């Protein structure tokens, strides 16, 4: 059981499934005893042994903790040593990568550092595409692992995961393309950091003026990223056009039909799916099957019909 209070105290859970014996992570590991405080389990310079991991498993410990400040060491360790390790189930690797990336990504956004955000998104996108493309991870394997609360990182991470799965099912491209899709999806809401939090989290209907601020986020995100050499046009269109609708009722441009890029259409379908299946402060999550019906009702009108058909077929396999 992962303790939310420990996370709020500055500790990050790491799954023991991602820890290898005799490998240095370069950060201290802590263990929780009897649902109370943490104790130092292993100093960073002393690698775990097989026996340590066996004892932890026997004691039912499936998570240790690291300090938030050490998250970058763990993220590097994951990227270098764990992501391609097929003996660890892909959903577990994905979950670990996402958890640790959350810290770095939020720090980059809060520190107003888009360069760092793009760098992290590229790493995460590559890792995610590798797992989903190479090991044919299915939606039903990862859906329960994803968190379904509507916080910005959770949302963009879910959208990215869904985008890669949908793109793979549509045969959009190879692993390299899927990696670019994942990165674009992680960045699709980057313009939202210019929207005040009280407007984003408002329980009541936004005023006209607030709507105008919200509607500016695709444009401001695009303008922030469009001069970068490490992003490609389809990724930029995921940022700029993910709220456009096929009938021209979306924003920011009211673009329609063929003027909406294929990757933006892809992002639009799963963006709405995640937004509705996540809980919000003012409403319960909508069941996935109901969201599928909503997408189907608006297929061809707002959303790309082929993409909706493909996505809802995936979702309907969920138990």
């Amino acid at each position, binding site marked *: 059981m992962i303790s939310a209070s420990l996370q709020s105290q500055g500790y990050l859970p790491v799954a023991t499934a991602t820890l290898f014996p005799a490998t240095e992570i370069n950060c201290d590991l802590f263990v929780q005893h009897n649902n109370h405080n943490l104790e130092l389990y292993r100093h960073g310079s002393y690698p775990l042994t097989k026996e340590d991991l066996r004892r932890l498993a026997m004691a039912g410990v499936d998570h240790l903790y690291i300090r938030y400040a050490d998250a970058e060491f763990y993220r590097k360790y994951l990227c270098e040593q764990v992501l391609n390790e097929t003996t660890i189930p892909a959903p577990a690797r994905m979950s670990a990568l996402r958890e640790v990336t959350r810290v770095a990504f939020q720090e980059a956004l809060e520190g107003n550092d888009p360069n760092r955000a793009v760098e992290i998104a590229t790493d995460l996108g590559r890792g995610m595409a590798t797992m989903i493309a190479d090991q044919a991870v299915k939606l039903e394997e990862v859906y329960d692992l994803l968190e379904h609360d509507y916080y910005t990182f959770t949302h963009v991470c879910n959208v990215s995961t869904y985008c890669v799965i949908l793109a793979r099912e549509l045969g959009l491209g190879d692993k390299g393309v899927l990696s670019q899709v994942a990165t674009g999806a992680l960045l699709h809401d980057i313009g939202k950091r210019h929207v005040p939090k009280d407007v984003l989290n408002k329980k009541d209907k936004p005023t006209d003026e607030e709507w105008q601020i919200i509607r500016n986020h695709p444009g401001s995100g*695009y*303008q922030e*990223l*469009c001069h970068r050499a490490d*992003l490609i*046009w389809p990724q930029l269109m995921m940022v700029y056009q993910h709220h456009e609708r096929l009938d021209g009722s979306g924003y*920011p441009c*009211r673009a329609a039909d063929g*003027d909406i890029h294929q990757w933006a259409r892809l992002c639009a379908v799963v963006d709405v799916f995640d937004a509705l299946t996540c809980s919000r402060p003012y409403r319960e999550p909508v069941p996935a099957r109901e969201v599928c019906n909503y997408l189907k009702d608006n297929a061809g009108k707002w959303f790309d019909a082929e993409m909706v058909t493909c996505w809802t077929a995936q979702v309907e396999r969920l138990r």
Partner: protein
Amino acid sequence: MSSTGQPLTADISATQTEHEFCAQADQPPSADGRLFQRHIFRACISAIVHAPPGQTATIVTGAGTPCQMLTRDISRSGLNLLHKQQLYPGQKIDVVLTDGQPRRLEVIWCRRLGVGCYSAGCRFMKTT
């Protein structure tokens, strides 16, 4: 609208250049919060639309080739024009207005009005 409630239309004579027109249009800030008043300005102008930022010229149809555009209104700071293709924030457009002077515009926003018809708000860029 003017303070008297009369529509503000451009009183532009055939001999008046845009320089003269803009110089005369030095109005106080308008009621909608704009720095400069807009004036109706309907003309067909020559333009070269450059590829949007983040895009290469070869991918955008017609990018970099001369075309015709319709203008809707003008102010000291910018121009509203109609184009048959979607334009993107930050995209550059070189135009020649009826005075024959080349000017460079930067797209600030773009809205689709109908099939193959986009309205774009652009600002004049300083030329060096």
